[in-house]
């Protein structure tokens, strides 16, 4: 199953220009699945960076806008787009010029993968 999911993510990675890495982690930032190129910055893949998303969505929920769904961090050279699929977090690392809207539109495409992985995580 993991190989199928990996292949699907690899396909997505190749289709979108500027997308460096797709990372599926648990809420602590521990990677479950990683697909990426060598262009992805090492520091952004660290669990202590990924897990700050959990803190950010907790703060975000205080805004009174409902559950935080997506977080986009735009840096000088990279963009980090994280999606709230708790208990999982999906992180996309892209170049600064990458089409953010296209990444957000991937949400529907990755939802079935996430449900499968969530089930697998729950069982183990």
């Amino acid at each position, binding site marked *: 199953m993991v190989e199928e999911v990996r292949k699907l993510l690899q396909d997505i990675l190749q289709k979108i220009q500027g997308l460096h890495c797709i990372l599926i982690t648990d809420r602590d930032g521990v990677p479950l699945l990683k697909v990426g190129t060598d262009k992805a910055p090492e520091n952004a893949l660290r669990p202590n960076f990924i897990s700050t998303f959990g803190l950010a969505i907790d703060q975000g929920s205080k805004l009174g806008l409902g559950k935080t769904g997506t977080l986009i961090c735009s840096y000088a050279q990279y963009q980090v787009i994280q999606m709230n699929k708790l208990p999982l977090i999906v992180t996309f690392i892209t170049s600064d010029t990458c*089409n953010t809207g296209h990444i957000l*539109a991937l949400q529907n495409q990755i939802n079935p993968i996430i449900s499968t992985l969530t089930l697998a995580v729950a069982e183990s």
Partner: protein
Amino acid sequence: MEKHLNRVMEEITNQPGVYGCVLSDHQGLCLGAHGQASTESSGVITALAEQALKLEPKSVMPIISLENDNRQLIIRRHGVLTCGIYKSVCN
């Protein structure tokens, strides 16, 4: 702030046959959608415009038309703005 943008989109949607329009910025983020257009399509529409431009990079921005039996999507990029217009086609 977006009053003017909304008015333009309304104007577009009021044209005969047009049932929706979506506007997005250079990063594919949705600026607005009117009628039966989905905000989620903005990213893909911008990506299509970008890819189409690569076919002939030296030419002016192309107009992309995707058509099926009864509907048509016209995509046009102007500067940092990309506009997608959904139209019904009568055969």
